[in-house]
């Protein structure tokens, strides 16, 4: 299987952008997002012939991205909240509402696993059980990560609580 093979190339062309957006939310960094997605797509390409349900290929790529990120989390000392963002100010260039930007800046500061939990739950619309399976953790851990993430965000952005 090569990346130029018609089936895979078609899939890439159609799904690159939405998958990149997911990768960006998972990593919080554009360069890391591209790296992560390229790596996940390489794995997908190798297994393309075994993916019978091509409609599920998105889920396969997403799972590959999450597994790759999770391999970093397995070493707890690497999972740290980001006090200094690697490309601070970059997100400010996004053309989004100020309150959305402020919230995103705080989400980027969350530990990666916590951020991924929010992305899977609230952007990918996975259930707690499905999120737990994707992350390789228990449902209790998903609940706990979500609870602590929301608590941190509410503490960091008290003004948003009163935003209509």
């Amino acid at each position, binding site marked *: *299987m*090569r*990346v*130029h093979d018609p089936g895979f190339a078609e899939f*890439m*062309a159609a799904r*690159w*952008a939405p998958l*990149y*957006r*997911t990768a*960006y*939310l998972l990593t919080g960094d*554009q360069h890391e997002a*591209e790296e992560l997605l*390229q*790596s996940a*797509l*390489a*794995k997908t*390409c*190798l*297994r393309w012939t*075994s*993916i019978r*349900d091509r409609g*599920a*290929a998105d*889920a*396969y790529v997403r*799972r*590959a991205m999450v*597994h790759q990120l*999770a*391999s970093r989390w*397995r070493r707890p*000392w690497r999972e740290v909240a980001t006090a200094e963002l690697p490309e601070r100010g970059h*997100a400010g260039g*996004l*053309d*989004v*509402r100020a*309150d*959305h930007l402020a*919230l*995103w800046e705080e*989400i980027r500061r969350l530990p990666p696993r916590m951020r991924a939990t929010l992305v899977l*739950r*609230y*952007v990918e619309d996975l259930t707690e*059980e*499905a999120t737990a*399976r994707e992350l*390789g*953790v*228990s*449902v209790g851990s998903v609940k706990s990560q979500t609870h602590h993430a929301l608590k941190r*965000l509410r503490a960091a952005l008290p003004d*948003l*609580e009163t935003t209509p």
Partner: protein
Amino acid sequence: MSPTDLRTSLTSVSEAVPVPAPDLDVLEGRVARARRRRTAVRSAGAAAAVVLVAAGSTLVGDRPDRPQPAEPVVPAVEPAAVPVALDGELAWVGDGVERTGLRVTDVVGTTAAGTVVLGSDGELVRVDGERVTPLADGVRRAFLDGDSVVHQDLDGRIAWTGGSTLPAPEAGDRLVGAGTGRYVVSRGSALYAVDAEGAHRLSYPPSDEPAVLHLPVDVGGDRVAVRADDEVTVFAADGLHSGTVGGGVRLGALAPDGSAYARTGEGGRGLQLLDPRALDAAPVRGPAGRVVDLRWDGTDLLVVASGGHALWRCAEGSDCSELYVDPEAELGL
């Protein structure tokens, strides 16, 4: 701040981020590298994998107190690499196989600082990437105690890397197992579980026969499991006997949190998960054939099956996928 706020913000950010064009040449290179990493061994093991899956399909069921994992809608993705002993040397198996050349007799386990292994020359080392840090020499056996390592040397001394606040062992104690905040020693003709509260004698063996010194002992959470004569006996940490299960327990391993005891099925074939409290067991779908080694790696169970030629990884002990097959390899955990 509601889930809707989060969803709206994240969606709006993701839609605003500029998307670079895919670089097909870079991707082609990645695919080629990934393909090279997939060893020829994996291909050679494909036929064996089919046999294992077919045999495993007769073993259905799951641990009763955990949610049944849904059938995957897509093929399982290569998980993170796990340390194993492959033909006597430390190797990482995951998205391919990386041999390190480090001769090992035992993979003690993984801590926050790296993977701890016992070398064939009795040197205890920690491996973190390419860095190998010596921890102790002349080590006979070692176990993890959280992120510390408790070990006993050839002279009988028991020590912890980084020290310990647990009551000190007595002279003549033989270290037989350890877990977070607890270790087990063979003292005289009895087994003792030692924790912050002191030493608790385990009522083992149930008869007055002298305890065998070389019993495999596992410590996990507040449980201690002792295996002998194809049976496993589970104790609460205060030494109280919890129960004994037979049925040909050739091998077993207690989860670090004490929530499950993985054991071989009848005749050492297949795998079951035993509830250490209720003592009921459920078969695990996946690993088939003769199981020769088991080790918990956090919440994952690693299983060497098919007589030592196949490595399985079971998330939460029951969601199993095959990592590696090589009919010629000798795998150990």
